[in-house]
């Protein structure tokens, strides 16, 4: 580890891998894990080993199968051309997956998701300003090939895939964070343009709704009912829960004001009994509390 404070930044790169290898080797000797060769895969899936780069010894497994759904459910993915991929490691991006699987056939789309979802995400891309990309974890992917043969080819893949290679390096660690930071410093003008377009569309929508409401105002429907709105000449209470609760509360208060307290003998008696009941309840609660404290030995002042 460097201890000096070099201004130039010409320090030797650190290789975190050496010690990992040692550790993994030790683990191998313990031999508790299943042997590398006999990789199992659950029913209907086939496993494809995937590693970040050459340097890693152990690999994760992608579990892939053809995308299928039950009869009654709808799915927008084309069933025979879509490959469903489980357990995509966090450092594996869409481009990267597309590159790795392109050997099986031409690829139309690759979509990474948090969890399996039947429907395709909305076509309209989410705004990068208002929905920043989440930090990636392990995800699932839907890969749509041009032809059905791509899927079957992919199911037969056995050789380990490498996410980052000499020719196509994938950024991770410090390099990735720095480039993420660069991306976060964006052009405010782009944001302004996006906001303006959205608001224009929104205003248009609101204006349309208003004109429609105005047209309907006071016009009875086919059964003769007239819709009463806030905007009318005589505004009514808004239809909210809070408003109706308020009305109820006011009624209750009005009634309580009229009632006489402790006027009749039975009222008096009842108040007293109520007081006694309160005391009894309190007493029970206290006893429970004492019991608990005794159990916790809280009465020892030493």
């Amino acid at each position: 580890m460097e201890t000096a404070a070099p201004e130039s930044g010409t320090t030797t790169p650190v290789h975190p891998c050496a010690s990992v290898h040692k550790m993994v080797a030790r683990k191998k000797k313990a031999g508790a894990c299943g042997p590398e060769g006999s990789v199992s895969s659950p029913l209907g899936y086939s496993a494809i080993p995937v590693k970040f780069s050459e340097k890693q010894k152990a690999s994760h497994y992608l579990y892939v199968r053809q995308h299928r759904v039950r009869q009654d459910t709808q799915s927008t993915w084309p069933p025979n051309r879509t490959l469903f991929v489980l357990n995509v490691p966090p450092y594996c991006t869409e481009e990267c997956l597309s590159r790795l699987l392109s050997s099986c056939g031409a690829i139309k789309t690759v979509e990474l998701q948090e969890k399996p979802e039947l429907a395709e995400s909305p076509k309209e891309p989410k705004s990068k300003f208002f929905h920043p990309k989440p930090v990636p974890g392990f995800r699932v992917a839907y890969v749509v090939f041009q032809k059905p043969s791509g899927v079957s080819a992919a199911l037969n893949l056995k050789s380990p895939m490498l996410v980052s290679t000499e020719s196509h390096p994938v950024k991770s660690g410090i390099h990735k964070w720095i480039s993420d930071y660069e991306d976060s410093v964006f052009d405010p003008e782009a944001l302004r343009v996006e906001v303006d377009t959205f608001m224009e569309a929104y205003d248009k929508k609101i204006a349309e709704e208003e004109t429609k409401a105005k047209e309907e105002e006071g016009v009875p429907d086919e059964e003769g009912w007239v819709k009463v709105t806030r905007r009318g000449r005589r505004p009514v209470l808004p239809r909210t829960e809070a408003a109706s609760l308020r009305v109820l509360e006011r009624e209750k208060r009005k009634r309580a004001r009229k009632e006489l307290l402790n006027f009749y003998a039975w009222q008096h008696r009842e108040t007293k009994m109520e007081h006694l009941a309160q005391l009894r309840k309190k007493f029970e609660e206290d006893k429970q509390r004492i019991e608990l404290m005794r159990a916790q030995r809280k009465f020892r002042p030493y």
Partner: protein
Amino acid sequence: MGPAPAGEQLRGAAGEPEVSGLALEGVSKEKATSRKRAKAERPADGLLQPVKLSREELYKEPTNEELNRLRETEILFHSSLLRLQVEELLKEVRLSEKKKERIDAFLKEVSLRIQRVPSVPEAELTDQSWLPAGVRVPLHQVPYAVKGSFRFLPPSQITVVGSYLLGTCIRPDINVDVALTMPREILQDKDGLNQRYFRKRALYLAHLAYHLAREPFFGSVRFSYTNGCHLKPSLLLRPHGKDERLVTVRLHPCPPVDFFRPCRLLPTKNNVRSAWYRGQGAPESASPEPPTPHYNTWILQDTALDSQTQLLATVLGSAQGLKDGIALLKVWLRQRELDKGLGGFNGFLISMLVAFLVSKRKIHATMSGYQVLRSVLQFLATTDLTVNGISLSLSSDPSLPVLADFHRVFPVVFLDSTGRLNFCADVTASTYHQVQHEAQLSMALLDSKADDGFQLLLMTPKPMIRAFDHIVHLRPLSRLQAACHRLKLWPELQDNGGDYVAAALGPLTTILEQGLGTRLHLLAHSRPPVPEWDINKEPPKHKDSGTLTLGLLLRPEGLTSVLDLGPEADQPEAADFRQFWGSRSELRRFQDGAIREAVVWEAASMSEKHLIPQQVVTHLLALHADIPDTCVHYVGGFLNALIQGPKEISNTGEEALALAVRCYDDLSRLLWGLEGLPLTVSAVQGAHPVLRYTEVFPPAPVRPAYSFYKHLQERASLLPRPDKPCPAYVEPMTVVCHLEGSGQWPQDAEAVKRVRAAFQLRLAEVLTEQHGLQCRATATHTDVLKDGFVFRIRVAYQREPQILREVRSPEGMISMRDTPASLRLERDTKLLPLLTSALHGLQQQHPAFSGVARLAKRWVRAQLLGEGFTDESLDLLAAALFLHAEPFTPPSSPQVGFLRFLYLVSTFDWKNNPLIVNLNSELTAEDQVEIRRSFLAARAQLPVMVIMTPQDRRSSVWTQDRPSAQILQQLVILAAEALPVLEKQLMDPRGPGDIRTVFRPPLDMYDVLLHLTPRHIPRHRQAVDPPAASFCRGLLSEPGPSSLMPVLGYDPPQLYLAQLREAFGDLALFFYDQHGGEVIGVLWKPTSFQPQPFKASSIKGHMVVSRGGELVMVPNVEAILEDFAVLGEGLVQSVEARSERWTV
């Protein structure tokens, strides 16, 4: 309600999470349905549940007995809970009948054996050759030569006296006092003179001890001092075998009744002749002999043992309430460490005080124990016995001395029924003031009717280190001998029989109290402990009684003034002032033209100002008592090192925080005055720890060195460079900006977001145009660079949470339902600013708040648990120490505040109690009761740690997601371990050693350690053990042109952790100290290592293997370990797998 034993309160240790989960859920379902069940069963799992009583039981006719009890409770106690608690406590401390029988049997044996001790023939006092070799006289015979002769005869009378007889002794250490009346033949006339009586008393005991020690019947026979008075040894006898801890019988020889003439023992009389004591010939001048009031009192005490017991017996008689009251008072004194040592406020004194109050009809025999406790505390709180003494004597005999005579020689006066003996002769004024102070605090607590008053009053120990702001140790004690000479205390030494500690204590505390003046609230001193020693050893010397410890309770108002103003130069008092302060006193001319004596202390920073008492104490002790500063160990600022910024030596960041807050004030003024915004700014509120003074390391103005960064010219921003070390960490300070109300806002959540974004953009433009500030706007906030500080302004729309909450039912009714998004928004834009301003206010009220909160947060983070808790929850914990300081006073120093933080964390019963933090005192007592009730009803839905504030009475917003039960449990365990270690370090008079010990986290519990390279840890220098050298972080020391936005919030370890938690959060927990930690601790979750059947949605990071013919999923640990290195490329130095627990 109060402390819970460690380990019991929250199930499951951190090592095995998940298994425990929340033990709450299962329990709440099986509620006790009937009264019978509630009574029969212990509250399951140590958890309180709401009581349910059937209607029938609630409303049945009351019996007479029940009504009586209810009424009694109402009159004699203030609540039924208190009554039950008091009864329970008394049951615990009272001696059982069975033990009493065993003690009685032992006493009978003792008295038999004493009678059998053989006599010895008469010999001169100075001839002690008859004493056997196996025993030493338990008294320092200085000077040795004394007239008179001694012989041993068995005692003429053996009587049990004191608390055992009265039934007021309390466990755990039961002492039985036995008075042995020495036969008249042993004593001679004039034995009261020159310690002759005490010499005989000691020889009497020595002979007894030798013979009793030969009996195998006794487990131990040892000497001790009666109440710490070293002229009066006593003999301790303990039973043999398993009963050894049962009882200690203390033998006190005493003279026959009427042997001493009382008029010889008045406080004005002298009974120790100077000529004898100083060993000179005839006194050089005819100066009158100094009176020896303490010496006289000690003899008088021996003569009155029996009569006092009788007096108490008649008063207490069969009044159980009085006895209970005395027992409670003894517990109260013991928790405050007031009852031990020479001059302690012991049980005997308090019994006599009860007797006095009975005689004055302030207490009645029918009162309950609680009422007696209350009355006595009330009396102590309002009566100053150092000014107005009291007396049990009713006689109006003119020959008796008046109270004023006693006040002249004793600091505290409480006379017995003869009017000659002062019970409080050895009590110092400081001790009494401490008692008074405690009584006042306790009365305030009782009057507040706090729910847990009992716990705080009687069950919470108040050790000195946790009760006082600063502590001073004086060591070695032999320095006090020199102090006595410097202070010219020879008569006092003569009176005290050479006990220089006792003689010097009073004058020393007076000097310090005078010198500390307005800085001081209370000065207390430890009382030398009462030693015990074997009979064949020499009695311990004064200097062996360890250390003298002083506790200072400071007044925050006057604490930081650097100037102590004296009288004007021409006043006669000026000379006294000069004499008192010595060379520190200077003549100064002030702005109003006055020329005065004054003392000026050097203190550059706030933290140094808080330590001015140290300068005062060391200066005065050296000047007046000849105690050099090497013998004064001042404990007050040791922990400051932990919150000092990197490269800082003298200040602890108060100035930096104030600078940041000032800059924020400037910015808010700019915002208010902005023109050109569609809506004007109506309020600006801080929402960042810096703006409530609780950021551990306050930010400094950023001055980036441009060559260190990559430039993004078109955005006027700096970017980090991969080939350089990570740049300095700059965290923007969040500010919430409210706009004036308007009906023009859209009523759709997505549209509101867009409009807000437009405001953020406009705000950036306007600020740049009108004030030339560098700004950067995003959709949710605008970052502003002002004077080197970066603020993150968030525009808020008041109705937005409401819009997010609206749900339209099919019938068109609009109702409000909380959603995660609405709650988050409300928390960030409404509650957080409120909390920030409330804590900002608290800081103005209690200047120590900042230090305490920062130390506490620092400690939690250093234990790698920082991310398990929200910042706000820790700040609220610290605030609770100030707002609910009972039974202490609000801390005035970070040190004591931090200790109490550890105590609070380690003892609070989170399972059964919400921590109520009454900010701005907005909650009434009824509100708090209501909060507790709703807490109990909803316990299972609430988080493990519940903190309620006036703004948040139901949901505990700040602990909603964090901490988990395991993390909280871990914190509790760590705090419970750290507290005694730290207290021991601070109470060690030789210095605290390595103060950072308790801040270093234990690493042995983690399964994997990820070692990070310091090159990419931007806050490396903040580490608990600051590195000797670190990397340049691209900052200039001189202000440069700062027009580019620095790199904001770029902290590689945090980015790395976010990735790890997202990818492997199901498999492991990650722990890291954000303040320069070099290691990330990884803890595998044991449950996730159970092989599980294949499931597509939970395959994350697992692999499928076949186990016994079945396909199961297990975590792919080898690949994951390599992922750790891949994800943190460049940051991770090595991955160290330490356990095989993950082997599957």
